[in-house]
């Protein structure tokens, strides 16, 4: 499983030509915005969070890249975006800090049909066969991402801004990321009580091999929208305590 994801960014004219000020730390927040919609009308289960970005960040590699895509917005430009020289230099100053982006990360549903297997053709740099993933999004995830796109676009619109790109079509999956792209991949060696439907017990110990523990994201039975690392740490701690206990008792 992986979280779903999609992004929208727009130029906000009110933020153009801002007086110089420190905005370090404004980006990268995982912001929880109180739900303002009507849950009874949603066509998908569960939810998502919004990460906000933009601001007057430190100029570094890639700074204001692709400016030709937006430096004709809100300015009278018969030739369209792009350019060079004095006009372009001024544009970087005008638009610096005027872009606001919203990234959605949502919960995907765990499906039995999604699985991984040992790749029959490809090996890694150590000569060991790599994992091959078979994974499809369903309407549940597509509808959720469509909701993200529509919500974020309306927020940019409310701010008086213009999105930097058009709403992705249904054929393009409403701009949903590929499975694995949000790098919250978890599951496959799921935990459970029944050895027929799970690989590990509640201590991340293999049902089949007593001294085999899987202390990573493998034991997850679902993947919410959030970063999985802290849950992995919590499960690892429980596993470690269990191993210590079992070794002291001479069971391992």
């Amino acid at each position, binding site marked *: 499983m992986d979280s779903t994801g999609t992004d929208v960014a727009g130029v906000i004219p009110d933020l153009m030509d*801002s007086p110089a000020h420190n905005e370090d730390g404004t980006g990268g927040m995982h912001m929880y915005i109180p739900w303002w919609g009507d849950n009874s009308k949603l066509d998908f289960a569960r939810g998502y969070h919004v990460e906000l970005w933009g601001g007057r960040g*430190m*100029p570094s590699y*890639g*700074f204001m*890249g692709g400016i030709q895509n937006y430096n004709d917005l809100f300015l009278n430009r018969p*030739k369209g*975006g792009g350019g*060079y020289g004095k006009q372009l230099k001024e544009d970087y100053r005008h638009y610096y800090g005027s872009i606001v982006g919203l990234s959605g990360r949502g919960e995907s549903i765990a499906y039995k049909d999604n699985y991984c297997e040992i790749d029959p053709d490809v090996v890694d740099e150590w000569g060991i066969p790599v994992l091959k993933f078979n994974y499809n999004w369903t309407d549940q995830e597509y509808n959720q991402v469509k909701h993200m796109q529509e919500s974020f676009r309306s927020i940019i619109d409310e701010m008086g801004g213009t999105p930097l790109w058009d709403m992705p079509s249904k054929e393009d999956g409403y701009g949903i990321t590929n499975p694995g792209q949000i790098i919250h991949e978890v599951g496959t060696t799921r935990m459970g009580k029944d050895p027929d439907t799970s690989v590990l017990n509640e201590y991340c110990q293999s049902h089949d091999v007593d001294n085999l523990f899987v202390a990573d994201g493998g034991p997850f039975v679902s993947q919410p929208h959030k970063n999985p690392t802290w849950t992995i740490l919590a499960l690892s701690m429980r596993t470690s305590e269990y191993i210590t206990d079992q070794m002291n008792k001479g069971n391992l």
Partner: protein
Amino acid sequence: MDRREALKRLSLGTLAAGFAMTGCKTVSEKAAQQHTFWKHVTEEDLKKWDAQFFTDHEFETVRQLANLVIPADERSGNAEDAGVPQFIDFMMFDRPENQTPMRGGLKWLDLQCSRQFDNNFIDCSEKQQKEMLDQIAYPDIAEPDMQPGVNFFNRFRDFVASGFWSSKQGIEDIGYKGNQPYDWQGCSHEAMEHIGLGDKG
């Protein structure tokens, strides 16, 4: 310490840089070449920092072109003053996927200038150079047969922006205020006023 030297030191890592500062430079370089500290720093990598990717002709084209993209004005110098041509040359080694598009784009520019003005780009007058740029710098109105030039110039413009605005004078010019000791009092009143929220802070 110039930029190449700085990058070299950075890549050697703090341990190696520590050796360098106590005078045992040969030890650290040798160690780095043996992959003791950083697996990815090879002897070839160390050599490349002293080499120039562009030919002298290409470098001169990059220099003139970069100065046309970001000229000097009352607030700051031009691309060359900020070391942009050297930066772009370094990036060809750092991100090799740019080598062919950049080399090819520079050649395309010379071919077009020869066709239109009977000269290489660097030997054209500034008026001719700008006439050339007017055909490739505005994607929305560019002619279809100028598309290779448009693609090249979009990439080139981004490189100049990265190099110029991340330089000392670029950071001062654009008004980046972070990453320095600062008495943080929340968002400035002037910035709040700018978005019509002057009464909120």
